[in-house]
Structure formats: C-alpha cells, structure tokens
C-alpha cells in the first residue's frame, strides 16, 4: 500500500487540464489608460481591433483563484517585489488573474518589455507552483 504516490509535473498538468476549460493568456499592446480603466471598472471582455495585435496566446492550466494583480501609474498592487522593481521602472502594466484565465496588458511597453515581462510572470508562476502548458 503506497500512501505517498508522487506525480510528475507532466502528469499533474494532464490531470489539471481535465477540469480546466478556460485557459488562455493574452498580452495586449497599445491600450490607453482610459480603456484600461473602463475594462477594470466594468470588468468586461476586451475586444481586439485590427490594429491591436495579439502578441501571445498560450494555454494556462491553473492560476491563483480570484486574484487580481494590478500595476498602474507605477503603483504596484499584489505583485512580488522583484517583479515590482522591474515594473516600476518600465511603467504601466496590468495583469488580471481570474479563475483559470490570465490577462496581461502592456500599456506603454514595447515588444522587448512585453517579452521580459512575460518571462518574469512565468518565473513567478513556477515559483508559486502555477502550472502551465503550451
């Protein structure tokens, strides 16, 4: 009788994928702060115009339930300090984390910033044992 069965990361990811239906990550560029405010206040979905390109679309299997991470006007709320230091320098980013969906907005960033930010978020998730696939 083995009471301590260990599962590999791959096996855990597979099991989690069986109950997660909403699992996208999107990084948007070029949103104005007014648009961001509107999104936050009304909590509505973002519709991409043709000009706003979807930079990354990856699948995530799990994120912290109900948590919203917000960085606005160099003010950092609910984000780890190492990430915060980076973001304070670079500017204006909003990360929404809700149920199985993560949405990140890079308001005044550029491609390089987006990719660094994206990498940092991934590192943060690994640290917090947040599982990702894709």
């Amino acid at each position: 009788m083995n009471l301590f069965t260990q599962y590999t990361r791959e096996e855990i990811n597979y099991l989690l994928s069986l109950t997660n239906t909403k699992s996208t990550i999107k990084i948007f560029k070029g949103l104005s702060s007014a648009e961001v405010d509107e999104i936050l206040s009304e909590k509505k979905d973002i519709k991409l115009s043709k000009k706003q390109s979807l930079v990354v679309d990856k699948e995530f299997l799990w994120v912290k339930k109900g948590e919203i991470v917000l960085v606005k006007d160099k003010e950092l709320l609910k984000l780890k300090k190492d990430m915060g230091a980076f973001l304070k320098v670079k500017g204006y980013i909003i990360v929404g984390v809700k149920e199985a969906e993560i949405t990140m907005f890079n308001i005044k960033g550029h491609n390089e910033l987006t990719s660094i930010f994206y990498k940092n978020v991934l590192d943060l998730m690994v640290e917090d044992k947040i599982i990702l696939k894709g």
Partner: protein
Amino acid sequence: MAKEFIENYFSKLKEVNNFHLSMLKGYGFKKPTINYILLKPFIDNAISFLSKIDDKLLNGLLLKLYRDVKSLEEFYSQLKEKTKYPEVIFYQEYLETIPEYRKLRDEYENQKALLEELNSKIQRYEEQLKRLNKDDEQYKKTNRMYVDSLHKYSKIKENFENVKNRLKIFEDAKRNEFLKEFEKTRDEELSKLEEILNIKLFYLDKLLWDKAKKSFDIKKFFSQANIDGDFSTKTFIKYFLKNIDTTKSKNKEWLDYLKRILRIVE
C-alpha cells in the same frame, strides 16, 4: 500527555493528509461539487467493465491514480474501523503509556491474585475442617491456619478495594479529556482524508472517460450498444440502468444504488 499520545496516534494520517493536500491545493486541483466517494463502487465497476472491452485502458496515469486512490481508500477504511471505539484505545493503549497508572494497575492485579489464592486456601481449610474431629490436634492446627487466612484475606481485601477505588478515580479523571481530544482529532483528520479521496476520485473519473473516449474498442462498443450521450459516468449509469435485469432479486440493491447515484450526478 493525552495530546502527545493522540498526536503520535494520528501522526501517519496527518503525514499522509499533509502530503496530498499540499499537492492538491498547491497545484489548484478542483474540488468536485458532488460527493465522489458515493460514486466509488460504480467507478470501480466501470473501470473493470471497460477494461474488459479494452485491456490497454488501465495503464499509465490512469493505473497510477487508480492504485493511489485504492491505497488511500484502504488506509481510510482501516483507520475508520480502528478508531471506531475510542474507549477501547483509552483503556488498552493510552492508559498503558502512563507509568503511574501501570504501577497502580499492577498493584491491583497482584492483590487480586493474592485474594484468589487465599480464597481457595480458605475453601480447602473449610473442607478439611468438616472432615476432622474437633478434638483432634490436626483440627486445631487447621483451624488456626483457617482463622489466620481469614484475617489475612480481610486485610488484603481492604487494601484491594482501596487500590480499585484509586484506579477508578484515575481512569475517570483521564477519560473525558482523552475521549474529547481523540474524537476531535480523529474527525478532523479523517474528514481531510475524505476530501483528498473525493478530489482524487473526481480526477480518476475524468481521466477514465478521457481515456475511454479515445479508445477505439470502447468507442465501437458505445456505438454498437447505442449508448446516447457523452463519455461520462452519468451516461454509463443510464446505460447500466437500461440494461439491468430487474427480475433478478440480487440486482435490487445495485439498481437502487444506480438510481441513487444518478440523482447525484444529474
């Protein structure tokens, strides 16, 4: 002292619970909204049934999770049975760990043995005296020993009652505190294990149907058997209900169970 004993008694269960809960919570495994423990007999049956159709179904991750759930379930049942009567654990295990109690209990046992020994001696003397002539020297000698034994018996008996009393006071003083703490810990930890089993069974069920829907043989079986609906426990319960022979009395219990769990999954 009771706390320490109870802590040790449930240490394995706590270790198992912590191991699984940190994995399940840490990775965000979802809690099912229904009680999958009630579905366990059906899931077992479905696995066995589907494995006969596709003998490659139960392997890899499904087999690993199935065995994991089985081990945990066995552990759960054993513990539930073992801890059903805390009073027995109190008397047979806990009190034995207290030196003061052991000393008192040994004294009680010794005195009891002495009394039994003296009692049989007294009975022997009484028998002998009945057979002897009162004028005989042997009668007087036996009578003296008889009186001495009676005297000794009453003295030991007095001491025995005292020890017995002290033993009872000791047990009463410890019992309530022990039972309260034991039952609290048992209920808390067993319900954590139930939670773990429930989540694991939920994922076992999901994984089973995820694999079943990819199996050529099972897909063929579903099609030939005209099973409507998706590949799920709910669909399969309905299929079982449709095909059960209700004229056979041995199926009555199974039929009632299927109806009950169908209401749960619907």
